[in-house]
Every structure is written in C-alpha cells, then in structure tokens.
C-alpha cells in the first residue's frame, strides 16, 4: 500500500505542531506580564507612527517574475518525471528520450530568452 509511508509524515507533522504549540503555551504561562503603556506600540525606531496600518498597497516590483515562477515551476513538474525515467529508457532508446526533452526544453528556453530580451527579468 502506497499510503502507509505517509502515516509517519502525518504523525510527525502532528507531533511537531503539538510541540510547537506547547512551547508557545509554556511561554505564555511562565512569562511575567508587566503592562506598560507603550509596550504595544509598533517599533518605528522611537519615532511616532506616521500611519497606523502598514497594510497598504505596495508597488510590487516582481509581479511579472511571480507569473514566470508559476510557469517555470510547471515546467519543472514536467522535467522531474523525465529525469526519473531517463536512465532506464536511455538504456533502451537513448536518442528518443533525449530528443523528446531536448524539444521540450528548447521551446521553453526560447520563451526564457524572449522574457530576458523583453526585460521581464528585471526590477521594474
């Protein structure tokens, strides 16, 4: 059964969550609580706050690279299975499996070069 190996992963995850939460709770219980009027003030190097919230719009310089990341990660998802079987298929028919990925990667490298030339990889 394939799923059984993952039982360990799930158990480990739950244990680590429990230990992490326990640490936070222990800290909460042990720690002294000395209220101070300014203790909840956000740290701004001692200068009074300019505006209360920082959840404002920030000009994101990497919007386009974020899109490209999604595309390249998808591409990696295709390359990974290829890499796994490459060694075994190469014994039978090396030219076939190599050409296949060569085509795939070449098409994508064309896209990559296009992105580079268009300046998509730059800080905008």
């Amino acid at each position, binding site marked *: 059964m394939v*799923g059984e190996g993952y039982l360990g992963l799930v158990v480990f995850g739950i244990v680590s969550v429990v230990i992490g939460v326990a640490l936070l709770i222990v800290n909460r219980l042990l720690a002294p609580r000395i209220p101070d009027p300014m203790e909840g003030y956000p740290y701004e190097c001692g200068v009074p706050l300019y505006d209360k919230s920082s959840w404002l719009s920030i000009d994101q310089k990497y919007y386009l690279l974020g899109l490209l990341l999604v595309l390249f990660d998808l591409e*990696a998802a295709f390359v990974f299975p290829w890499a796994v079987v490459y060694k075994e298929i190469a014994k039978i028919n090396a030219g076939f499996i190599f050409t296949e990925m060569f085509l795939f990667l070449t098409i994508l490298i064309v896209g990559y070069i296009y992105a580079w030339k268009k300046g998509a990889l730059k800080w905008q």
Partner: protein
Amino acid sequence: MDLSVIAFWSFSTLAVLSAIGVVFFKNIIYSVLSLISTLIMVSGLFFTLGAELVGALQILIYAVAIVVFYVLVISTVPEYKGKAIDPKYMLLSLPVGFLLFLELAYVSVYGAWASNTGIFKPEVLNEIGNVKAVSTILFTKFLFPFEVASLILLVAMIGAIILGRKEQVMDEEEVK
C-alpha cells in the same frame, strides 16, 4: 475501519472546510492561508489514493509557486479593498461556478467509467512505484500532449510578459 478510509474522509473534510474558508473569510490573507490548507489537503487526498507524484507536485507548484504569486498580488491590494464584498459579482460567478462543477462531475464520472488499468497492473505498480509508472506512460503513450504542453507554456509565458510589462501599458495609452 481501514486507515486509508479514515485518511480519505479526514483529508476531504478538511479540504472542503478550508475551501469554504477561502470563499467566506473576509480578510484576504486568511483566504490565502486557507487556500494553502486546501491545496495541502488535496495533495493529501492524492497521497491516500496512491498518486504520489501528483501529490508532491501539487504541493510544489500550487502551494508554493501559485500562492507566492497570490501573496505578491495581495501585497499590491490595500486592506480596505480586500475586505469589500460586492454582491453583483455573485450574479456572474454563481452560474459559471455551477457550470464548472457540472463539467468536473461529468469528466470524473465518465473517467471512472471509461478508464482501464492499462499496462500497469497493481502488482507492477507496487514493484516499480507510482512515480516511474506515471513517467513511463507520460513519455511513451502521451508523448504528443507532453510536447504540446511545452507550446502551451510558451504561449502562456509570452502572454504573461505582454500583459504584465509596465512599459507596454504605457505604450497602449499613448496610442489611444
């Protein structure tokens, strides 16, 4: 009760719950968090069904790349805009969502009826592992869709660059 049945029900319950969270959380960051949770739970579903490669790639691509992209987008949206709920979008989104649901239901029911085990019997699968089975199938039987996928990715990349570049937008304004 079998372990995989328990796992299936708990993963799917959590996935549905966090999917509801994605829709109904008013704070946009909480929506993203529950989106991550949904995606991880769905990958857990893949794992319980024995599709290891798909599950792992699900985490890698969806939970990392796509969510990071969402975080980038959200950081450009002010908080007050993220909280606004406009009911008029529901008019459009409800029927479209229902249509998508119907399509998915059709595909999955049809797929369950039409699929066969193919060359990989369960014994073979246990021996060589799910990953190699998927890869072998992908690079022999489904070779053409695989190469077409690269073309689709190329088109998507070019489209993204043309849409996303800031200079391009400026040019269009000048033309008008």
